[in-house]
Structures are given as C-alpha cells and as structure tokens.
C-alpha cells in the first residue's frame, strides 16, 4: 500500500521548503489537512498562505519535501495526472480571477463546459443552483466588470464548487463582504463542506469568523508552523505567538513589518549631501 495514502488525511505535507528570491517562505514545514473537515490556515500577511495553496495545487514546485494530496505526491505528477487531480480540487482565488470575456453565468458554467458533455439544459440547472446558493442568481447576465469585489468573489466561489470537487481551497473568502453576506458565506462554507463531504481549506486573517467555522487551525509565520489545533485549544494556548495572533494584539513576538534593515539607519542612510 502507498505510504502516502492515509484515510484520515487528505493533504499531507512533509519537510516542505520553498524560497522566493532570497526569502525563505517555508522552512521544513509539516502540515496535515484532515478529510471531511474545515482546516484554516492563518498567519500574518505575506507569510506565504497563498503560496501554500499554489504549492498544493501544483502551480509552484517546492525545493524539497512532499505534498501528498489524496495519496499522490503533487510535485512529481505528470501534467496529465496533475490535471486529473485538479479536476477534483476547487480553488477560490484571492482576486476572484473570473474570466473577463464571459458573463457571470458562463463563468460558472466554464468548468462544466470544459470537462463534461452535459446537455445545455442540465448545465443551466446546475449553474443556476450554484448561483442561487451564493445569492447571485439574478446577476447571471452581468459581465464581470459590472460586479463589485465581494460579488465577484461569490461568483468565483460558485465556480469553484460547480464540479462538486473533493476539496475546495478558499483564499480569503471573507474579505470585502458585508456582515450579511459574510454570515451567509460562513454558513455556506460549513453547509457545503458537511453536505457534500468535502474537505475545505480556508486561508484567512479573520480570527473571529474563522474560529467559528474551522475544525482545525494552523498558524504559520516566518516559514514555520507556529501552532495548530482546534480553535478552542488555540484560544487557551501558552504560546505567545499564537496568543498574540488569536487575540489580535499589536504587541508581541509576531512582527508587523516585512523583514527590513534597521529603521533609523534606513532613514538616515539615503541622506542627499
């Protein structure tokens, strides 16, 4: 039996190393995403959460380590195998990334048209159902530039789930949502995860919303996993990093600044004379 194939974990990351330029984004990271649950990846801005999703999706190749999704090591897959695997993954991009030459309806229908030979009437049903769940059935004829940021993200969400994948990765699903759509989205993510038996990965900064729906939380910072566990466990943790993050304190061991040289030397260094 394949040692990577584990019935409990869908995504298993071992000793992951990844560098951008000279900056070490991941340094020997180990991470497990359990099946059938919602796992949140949290961490300060710029720590590499989006990068992690791209690594899982096979769009970036790690320097070292394994990323096993459903028993397959993503970095070593052939293009064909990778595409087969991706059909079973949905991804919600941070920017939405809707296709600008298509209407809302056609954007959601896109994966169906590309990967299935379903008749038009069935596609119409499926698309309208997904649009209805995100509350945008009435916006089907709009073009993408006629949508607000939050609406675009909800359309992208409908598109990510239209093929009924085994796993959906959400990159910041809550940004730009008003309190009402936020509540709807939180419930929606929970409902589709449980109803469809999905595995969900949520990347987010929203400690409050995320703790509400996540079953597990990973906090990453500076290329390391700083803490993980259920939201309740993390709330009562002893680790000062995790504590600072979960309670949104500005003072603590987590730096707010991108790594830089000393502030005073930097300001004084460029003096024109």
């Amino acid at each position, binding site marked *: 039996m394949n040692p990577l194939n584990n019935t409990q974990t869908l995504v298993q990351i071992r000793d992951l190393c990844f560098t951008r330029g000279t900056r070490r984004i991941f340094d020997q990271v180990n991470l497990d995403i359990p099946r059938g649950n919602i796992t949140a990846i949290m961490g300060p801005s710029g720590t590499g959460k989006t990068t992690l999703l791209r690594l899982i999706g096979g769009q970036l190749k790690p320097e070292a380590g394994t990323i096993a999704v459903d028993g397959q090591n993503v970095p070593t897959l052939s293009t064909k195998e990778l*595409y087969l695997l991706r059909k079973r993954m949905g*991804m919600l991009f941070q*920017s939405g*990334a809707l296709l*600008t030459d298509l209407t809302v309806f056609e954007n959601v229908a896109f994966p169906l048209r590309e990967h299935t030979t379903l008749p038009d009437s069935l596609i119409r049903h499926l698309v309208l159902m997904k649009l209805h769940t995100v509350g945008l059935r009435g916006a089907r004829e709009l073009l993408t530039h006629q949508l607000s940021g939050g609406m675009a993200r909800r359309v992208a969400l409908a598109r990510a789930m239209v093929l009924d994948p085994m796993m959906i990765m959400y990159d910041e699903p809550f940004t730009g949502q008003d309190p009402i759509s936020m509540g709807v989205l939180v419930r929606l993510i929970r409902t589709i995860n449980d109803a469809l038996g999905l595995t969900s990965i949520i990347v987010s900064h929203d400690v409050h919303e995320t703790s509400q729906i996540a079953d597990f939380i990973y906090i990453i910072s500076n290329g390391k996993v700083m803490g993980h566990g259920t939201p309740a466990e993390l709330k009562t943790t002893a680790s000062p990093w995790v504590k600072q993050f979960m309670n949104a304190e500005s003072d603590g061991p987590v730096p707010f600044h991108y790594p830089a040289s000393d502030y005073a030397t930097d300001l004084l260094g460029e003096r024109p004379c």
Partner: protein
Amino acid sequence: MLTQLQHLGHTILTVFERLGRASLFLMHVLAGVPGLLLRPYLVIYQIYSVGVLSLTIILVSGLFVGMVLGLQGYNTLVNFGATDMLGVVVALSLVRELGPVLTSLLYAGRAGSALTAEIGLMKTTEQLSAMEMMAVNPLGRVVAPRFVAGVLAMPVLATIFSAVGILGGHLVVVELLGIDAGSFWSQMQDKTEFMEDVFNGILKSLVFGFVVTWIAVFEGYDCVPTSEGISRATTRTVVHSSLATLALDFMLTALMFSDI
C-alpha cells in the same frame, strides 16, 4: 571593458533563452491545435476578432496603395509609352510584395498588439492561473485558437488587400487617367502566373501570419504581469513582428523570385 563584455554576454544569453522559451511555447501551442477540431467555434470567434475586425483598415489601405501604384506607375511608364503595362505593374507589385508585406505590418499593429495585450491582461489578472487550477490548459483553450485564427486570417486578408488594391489601380488608371480598360486587364492576365505570383504571395502571407501571431501570443503569455509589463510586451510585438516580416520577406523573395 569587462563589464561591457559581461553586459553583451548577458544580452546574448537572454535573447537565446527567450528564443528557446518561445520555441517550447510554440510546440505546446501546436500540441493544443488538434483539440480545436472538436470545438471549431473557439477558432471561429477568434477569426472574427482578429480577421473580420481588421477588414476596415485592410480595405482602406489596400485601396489607397493600389491608387498610388497606378499614379506612380503612370508617371514613369508614360515616358516610355508603356502605359499598357500599368495593369501588370499594379498587380505584380501587390500580389508578390505589397499585399503580403503591408497586410502583415497592418495586422501586427491592429490585431497582433491586441492579442498581446489581451493575453497579457489575462495573465496579470490571474485568469490563466485560474484556468490551470480548473484543469484547463490555457495554451489549448486561450492561445491555440488565437494562433490558428491568426494563421488562417492573414492569407485571406492579404488576398483581399491585393484585390482591393487592383481595383484602386483600375480606378486611377482607367477611370481617372483614361488608359484603355481592355489593355489594363488583358496585359495583367497575360503576365501574372498563378503558381509563380499569386500562390507564392499567399505562401508568403501564410508565413507572415504564422510568425506575427506567434510573436504576439508569446509576448502576451510571457509578459511581466504588471501594467508596464503589458505595455512593453505590446510594443515589442509590433516592433519584432514588423522587423521579422521585412526580413522574412527579403529571404522569401530571394528564394521564390530570383532566377539564379
């Protein structure tokens, strides 16, 4: 001195690296072409946007170029009493050279730059990335239809350019300057060979279509994903494809029409 040498070496390496990347890119795009047979509507839509929408500029330019050829040819040939040959002059210049070359230059400016900007913007806004994540190969879905459409559209556009140009020549030579229409057309038919002239001209435009569209889609796909990157890529498309057209035209002419 050493730094200059280094700079030169670096430039040359970059050029070859880009050429290599462009060739690999072309191979991947061509691999996506057979899949289009099942979905011809993707190509047809692109033919509309690169071909049909370029028609106006092709028609107007063709007409004026033909008219100028008629005028200039008349001014020269009238000294030798050879105005009967005007039809030949107009037709051969257009079919052999000006049709394919000018169409290619106009196409690079009108459709090539648009292709680059469109694909570059799709890259910048992560649309290509999103397609990859939806297990759709952007080279097959986005680039291949545009490439095929460009290669198919160019010979048709060049043919239209030449045809309209000949009509423009007729307008000036026969209607304006009063040369006999019979000799204009009969000399033209007599001296223009199908294989030698017309077919070679179409072959040229096919080559130009291939190269210009290749440059345009590659520049878009390879651009730095920022607004400045897109604008640079668009400029490079126009410059590189114009130069490539002119250089290739010389080579093709040497191969096709020199009687060595």
